[in-house]
């Protein structure tokens, strides 16, 4: 790797509970993300992919390992400076926006916390960046569609000009046509603002579309690190990744029919 990584995760471990109830949600996961690139975390539910994101931004306990952002180890609890660098977009735009706050209030809160000036201009700019006009400024979330809400969530994450955006299934609550719009928006924003993304998704096609490199996870462990090209060419190494690729192509009818006839 030529440049210093923007994100460097070394032997990350996240453990919940103690004694007999102890669960290792993430076990010894390491990866590096170059500045300006998109890194994907793929896996099924319970694979620990979202937990990795939550651990990075301080929402899950780090039991062991090291998280370096922009060459510096992150402090615990995370500092204000950290949140200027790293922001997160959550899966469900219906749950992640305060239902009784207008768009204006949602967007001005991070500015107020960080003591930023020119709130009005920044809010209007943020709305422009995500493709919404100034007319959206005083609306409530219930007056917005799912795609518009996710745009607001992205605007909220971007308003502090972070370098890294953590995206936790940003399109899985959205319809296919809206998903395409959000994916295009994320693509454009990254290019224009020089952002680094970590994208968590269960959808291999979405990850392959947006990411350069990706990590396949299962039961809290890293299964395989690969690239989108390898995935497209179906030259993946592990059987598990292959089964994910196969499943993402849709249903395949086995002929002659596999499986024993039903006992009825």
């Amino acid at each position: 790797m030529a440049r210093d990584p923007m994100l460097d995760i070394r032997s990350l471990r996240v453990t919940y509970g103690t004694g007999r109830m102890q669960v290792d949600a993430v076990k010894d996961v390491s990866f590096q993300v170059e500045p300006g690139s998109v890194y994907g975390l793929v896996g099924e539910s319970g694979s620990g992919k979202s937990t990795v994101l939550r651990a990075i931004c301080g929402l899950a306990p780090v039991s062991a390992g090291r998280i370096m952002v922009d060459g510096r180890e992150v402090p615990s609890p995370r500092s204000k400076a950290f949140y200027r660098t790293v922001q997160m977009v959550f899966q469900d735009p219906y749950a992640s926006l305060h239902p009784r706050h207008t768009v204006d209030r949602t967007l001005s809160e991070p500015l107020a916390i960080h003591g930023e000036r020119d709130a009005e201009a920044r809010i209007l700019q943020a709305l422009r960046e995500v493709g919404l006009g100034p007319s959206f400024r005083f609306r409530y979330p219930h007056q917005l569609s799912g795609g518009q809400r996710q745009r607001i969530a992205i605007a909220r994450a971007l308003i502090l000009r972070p370098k890294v955006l953590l995206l936790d299934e940003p399109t899985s609550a959205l319809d296919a046509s809206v998903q395409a719009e959000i994916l295009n928006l994320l693509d454009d924003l990254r290019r224009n603002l020089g952002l680094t993304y970590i994208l968590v998704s269960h959808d291999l096609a979405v990850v392959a579309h947006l990411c350069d490199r990706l990590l396949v996870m299962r039961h809290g462990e890293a299964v395989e690190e690969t690239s989108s090209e390898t995935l497209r060419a179906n030259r993946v190494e592990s059987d598990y990744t292959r089964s994910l690729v196969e499943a993402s192509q849709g249903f395949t009818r086995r002929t002659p029919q596999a499986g024993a006839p039903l006992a009825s």
Partner: protein
Amino acid sequence: MTAPLLDVEDLRVRFHLRTGTVEAVRGVTFKLGRERLGIVGESGSGKSQTGRAILGLTPPPGEVEARRLAFDGIDLLTASRRTLRALRGGRISMVMQDPKYSLNPVMPIGEQIIEAYQAHKKAGKGEARDRALAMLEAVKMRDPGRVFALYPHEVSGGMGQRAMIAMMLVTEPDLLIADEPTSALDVTVSMEILRILDELVSERGMGLIFISHDLKLVSSFCDRVLVMYAGRVVEEIEARNLRDARHPYTQGLMRCLPTLKDDVRPLPTLNRDPAWAL
């Protein structure tokens, strides 16, 4: 063609709300034989309300109207409540999206399947129990005897969905309506569930209505697909010909999905023509 299993003509579902009347389903017409029919559409297209209306499960204050809504010659619109009750869960059953919300949380899985069976068939406890166990086995449940005694919260999503399918199929229905049966599940698990449904359809000669937002999945699983938009069927097409769809909405829906095969960037987005909703 022999008499269809299900005959729907000009089905309409209306909700009178304070803010005005919303017509969720606006004149849907189709016939179903012993085949796999997919209904696809985005949220709000009326696909789920179509499935519910067939079973008479439209939530109040919804209002169902149709020129014809017949199952195997029985008019579902004029049928008595008693007839409908016997049909629902007996000859027509429905698999819902999320087993977490659709199974009874305070009753072991086995008991729930027995209850479903005894509600429709005259059978003793012993026979019902044998049937329930056989059905759990038929949906490829590992260790059916153990699962039998478990409560829904003690099993995973995939197992819960299998239990629900077992419950819906234990009465050997002629028609199964599956409303997003795999959307809450992981891809590899959902493939297993689909395989089970597929075998049951081909072996029992059941009719299946598969409601989903996932065009890719439906095109690979079903024989025929109805594409719904704003409460109407905008296109009916053989699943394998979906790539040659003629309606711009279907085409747009197919194109806007990222694929593993090719890297299109930016993704084509859908320009909704107001004329589609007319």
